[in-house]
C-alpha cells in the first residue's frame, strides 16, 4: 500500500514541459485520432486525446489545469464530430479533473497505476458521455459497452507506450 502512496518529494514534484510540447502533443493527438481511423477502420480502439489529457493532468498535478485541458480536448473532438458540442467536453473535463486529483495523492510513475488509471478513467468518460447524451439531453443513442471496454483496454496499452515517450520530453533540473 505504501508503494501506491506518493512520498513528500513526489508530492511537490510537478512535471515541466517546453511550451511547444503543451501545444503540439495535444494537436498531434487530435490529428492522429482523426486520421488513424482511415487506416485502421473499425479497429480504432483508443482515444488519444483522453490519454494525453490524463498524462498532462497526472504530470502537472493541478486539477485546474487537468480540467481545462480535458475541456479543450473534448470540445475540439466534439467540433470534429456531428454531435452537439460539449458532450465529450463534459466527459473529458471530469476525466482531467479526476486524473489530476488522483495524481496528487498516489505515485503516478508506477506502470500498473498508470494502466489502471487510464482504464478506469476511460470507462468513467464513456459513462459520462452516455449519461449526458441520454439523460441530460434526452436523445436516443445506441450504446455498446463491449466497444467501450475495448476502448479502455486500448487506451491503457497506448498509455503504456506513450507515457514513457512523453516523459522524455519533460524539463529536468
Amino acid at each position, binding site marked *: 500500500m505504501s508503494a501506491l502512496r506518493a512520498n513528500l518529494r513526489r508530492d511537490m514534484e510537478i512535471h515541466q514541459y517546453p511550451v511547444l510540447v503543451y501545444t503540439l502533443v495535444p494537436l498531434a493527438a487530435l490529428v492522429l485520432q482523426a486520421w488513424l*481511423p*482511415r487506416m485502421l477502420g473499425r479497429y*480504432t480502439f483508443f482515444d*488519444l486525446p483522453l490519454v494525453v489529457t490524463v498524462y498532462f493532468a497526472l504530470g502537472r498535478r493541478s*486539477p485546474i489545469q487537468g480540467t481545462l485541458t480535458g475541456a479543450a480536448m473534448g470540445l475540439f473532438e466534439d467540433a*470534429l*464530430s*456531428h454531435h452537439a458540442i460539449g458532450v465529450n467536453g463534459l466527459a473529458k473535463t471530469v476525466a482531467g479533473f479526476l486524473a489530476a486529483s488522483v495524481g496528487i495523492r498516489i505515485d503516478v510513475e508506477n506502470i500498473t497505476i498508470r494502466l489502471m488509471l487510464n482504464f478506469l478513467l476511460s470507462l468513467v468518460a464513456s459513462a459520462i458521455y452516455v449519461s449526458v447524451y441520454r439523460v441530460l439531453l*434526452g*436523445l436516443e443513442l445506441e450504446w455498446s459497452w463491449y466497444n467501450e471496454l475495448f476502448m479502455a483496454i486500448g487506451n491503457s496499452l497506448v498509455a503504456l507506450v506513450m507515457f514513457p515517450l512523453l516523459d522524455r520530453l519533460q524539463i529536468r533540473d
Partner: protein
Amino acid sequence: MDSFFIRYRNLVVLLVVLLAQIIGLAVQVRRVHTGSNSIDPQDGQGVRLIRLWANSLVSPPERLIHSSKLGTNSLWQNYLDLRHVREENHDLQKTIDRLRLEQAALLEDARQGQRLQALLGFQQKYIYKTVAAQAIGTSGSEQSHVFYLDKGSADGLARDMAVITPEGIVGKVRDVFPHSAQVLAINDQTSGAGVILESTRIRGILRGNAVGELQVVGILADQRIKAGEKVLTAGGDQIFPRGLPVGEVEKVVRDPDRDAFIDIFIKPAARLDQLDEVLVITSTQSSFSPEQQQDLATSQELKGPEAEAIKEQRKASQIMAERLPGLTDPNAPAANQGGVPATAPATQAGQAPATPAVVPQLPKVLPPQHPDRFTPGSAPVSAPDAIPDSATDAIPDSATDAKPKPKVKATISAPGSAGAKPSPKTQTNTTKPAKPPENP
C-alpha cells in the same frame, strides 16, 4: 468569502467549466413537435464557427499526411501496376467491348422505360454531374461516423449532396466549409436512407447501429428475405438517386422489441471503414449528362447493329420455341432444355448478364423415319370419331391442347432479357405493400 474560493478553487473551476458546457449544450438541443429532443441539424452561427476553427486546425496536417502517404504509396504502386498493365489493359478492353454491346442492347428498353415513366408523370433522376474528392480524415469518435473530404463549397459542394463510390453509396454531405466538407456516413445512427430490396421489393429505412453496422429496421417479418439479396436505393429520400447499390442482406434477425418485425443487417457495398476516393453527386437531372449521351451514342454506333442482330435472333428463337412445344420435355431438368443452363447467373433477376451475346441453341429436329398422322405436316384427322377411344386416351395432354408450355418460353429466353426485366414471380411480389418507413 475569498478564503472559500481559494480553498475550493479547483472545485469552483470545475463547476464553472461544466456549467458553461451544459449551457452550451442546452442551446444546441431543441424539442421537436413529436415531444422528443433533437440536435438542431442546422448548426447555429456560434457552433458552426467552432466547427470551422477545429476543421481549419486539423485539416492542413491531415492533408499533409494524406498527400505524403499518397506520394510514398504511388512510387511503389506505380512499379507494381506497370508489371501487369498490359494484361489488365487487354482485360479492360474486353470488358468495355462487352459493356458497349450490353449498353446498346439495353438502350432501346431504357428509352421505352423513360417514355412510360413520362406518361406516368414519374421523373427519374440521373446522375448528371459528380465531383471526385479524397477522404482525408474522420471525426475520430466511435459515436460519430463522419469523415472529411478535401473539397468544399469552393468546388461546388453543398449540404445534402449524395456521396458515392463506384461500389455503392457512402453518405451525404452534412456540412460544407470553403475547402473541406463533412460527410455523414450511412452507418451512423443518425443517418437515414430510403432503400429497397431488389427482388422482394420491400422498402425500408437504412441506418447505422451502435457499432457502425448497417441495418434496415422495423420491417414486417417476411420469409422471402434471404441473405445475399441485393439492396438498392429507393430514391424517395431526395438525397440518393434511385437504383444505386447499397449492399446485400447479411442476416435477418427478429426485432427484440416487436415480435412481428425483423431487422435486416446489410453488408455495405462500399468499404465504409477504408474510404479513399469518393464521388459527390453535385447535380441530378431528368436527362443523361452530355458525357453519358456521348457514351451511349458511341456504344450504339459501334455495337448497335450487332446488338440489333442479337435481338432479332432472340426474337426468332422465341417464336420457334413457341411453335415447337413438343421438342422440350416440361418435366425434364431445366439444364437439359434448349442448351441453356437454368442456373446461369444472368437469368437471375436484377443481375447483370455475364454474356448477353449468347443466343440459346434450339435442338435440331430430325426427319421422322416412319411418318404417321401425328407427324407435323401430315394430313389432319377428318373426324373425331375416326380415332378409336383407346387411341384418344393414349394421346398425352400436351399433344391434345395446342398451347405451348410456358416453361419452354422461360427456358429459351435470352440471358440479357432476364437480367433486364423482372421475372413474372418478381412482378407478383412487387404488388406487396411495403411497411411505411419510419422517420430515422
